[in-house]
């Protein structure tokens, strides 16, 4: 009874295949980067051992204001790729009062850190709304919160945006994809990460961040970050 699909449904299948290919490509590139980071870290530890240094731990955290020299997903193969191929739509979350969803762009900085930028999603692009409620797509060299997630297990960032409507946004990457508990002003929400372990929590108003925490499980251990 199904037979050959008519033109509109046939075209929709091709577009979905392209979207799936973009999603798989992003996952593959991030996984490659994580493997590379692990290899480099292993080499560093070995060299440190030879030099008789013990208990060396490397923790690097930075806020990359320059952004990546080149997004790792810029040269995706699909000629009809969405405007923002680094967008991880699986972690998108609705705004508390409606309108476009909030989403994350995951990318690598020029020095190999895992970075994440937050914004609203419109037409497959990540961007922001200005005071006049005009959508402006984020440029490729946007800044983001960056960290070596393969090492730390949990990257967390928070923003308090007063315009166009006051919002408190907590977002980041949970390496193992385990549920993330976000507590702000005594109110706790549990968020299940989407692709690449990315997560977002959006709340109304400009919350008091003193005492705010984010926790998740990494390699069987509880990891906690304080936001204020």
């Amino acid at each position, binding site marked *: 009874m199904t037979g050959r699909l008519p033109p509109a449904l046939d075209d929709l299948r091709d577009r*979905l295949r392209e979207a799936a290919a973009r999603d798989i490509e992003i996952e593959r590139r991030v996984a490659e980067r994580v493997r590379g980071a692990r290899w480099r870290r292993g080499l560093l530890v070995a060299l440190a051992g030879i030099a008789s240094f013990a208990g060396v731990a490397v923790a690097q955290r930075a806020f990359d204001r320059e952004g990546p020299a080149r997004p790792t997903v810029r040269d995706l193969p699909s000629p009809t790729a969405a405007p923002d191929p680094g967008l991880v739509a699986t972690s998108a979350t609705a705004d508390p009062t409606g309108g476009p969803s909030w989403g994350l762009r995951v990318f690598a900085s020029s020095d190999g850190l895992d970075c994440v930028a937050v914004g609203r999603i419109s037409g497959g692009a990540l961007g922001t709304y200005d005071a006049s409620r005009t959508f402006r797509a984020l440029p490729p060299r946007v800044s983001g919160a960056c960290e070596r997630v393969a090492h730390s297990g949990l990257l967390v960032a928070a923003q308090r945006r007063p315009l166009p409507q006051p919002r408190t946004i907590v977002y980041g990457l949970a390496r193992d994809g385990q549920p993330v508990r976000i507590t702000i002003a005594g109110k706790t929400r549990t968020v299940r990460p989407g692709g690449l372990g990315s997560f977002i929590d959006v709340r109304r108003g400009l919350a008091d961040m003193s005492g705010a925490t984010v926790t998740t499980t990494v390699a069987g251990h509880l990891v906690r970050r304080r936001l204020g």
Partner: protein
Amino acid sequence: MAQLMRTHARAGETTLLARSLREADAFAAFYTAYVARVSAYFVRRVFDPEVAVDLTAETFALALERRRQFRGHSTHEEQGWLFAIAKSLLQAYWRRGRIEQAAVARLGLERQSLGTEDFEYLHFQAGMEALRGRLAQALDVVRPDQAAAIRARVLEEREYAEIAADFETTPEVIRARVSRGLRTMQRFLGDKVYDALADA
């Protein structure tokens, strides 16, 4: 993240959804396997091919976004998971009177306008000809303004803008009247109308 991917890869490799985590063609095959049933499901309930295809597109866009959350191991579970999404979207459409398109927008999917071949396919799949007679009988159970909107849109197949001009209102109001009227009719008809379709 690599560990996360390995965890996903272990979950139910036998299903197309599980394979689609690594192969884009598997998601295309998943779509091909179910699109006829999903689109017919919507056409039989909203009686409007344009609305049905928008809801179908959103269903598969959400399935693509959420496929890592699927924990089943069989095609039966896969199908149930997909239709749970479809059912949720249909309920939202009836409740709000508008079509949810958030996932379609996030993925940057733009669907083609429907042509004659599309309409014929959707009508055939859903058994619309057999359905129209029963629909006409059921119009008495809905409010007169909703019945008039359904008659114009579903039975006479006129454009929303044209109907809105006749009623001196906006297309959005007409869409809301149609969706809410159809929900009332479905409550009245129950499963009888869908059982009848099985014989069509």
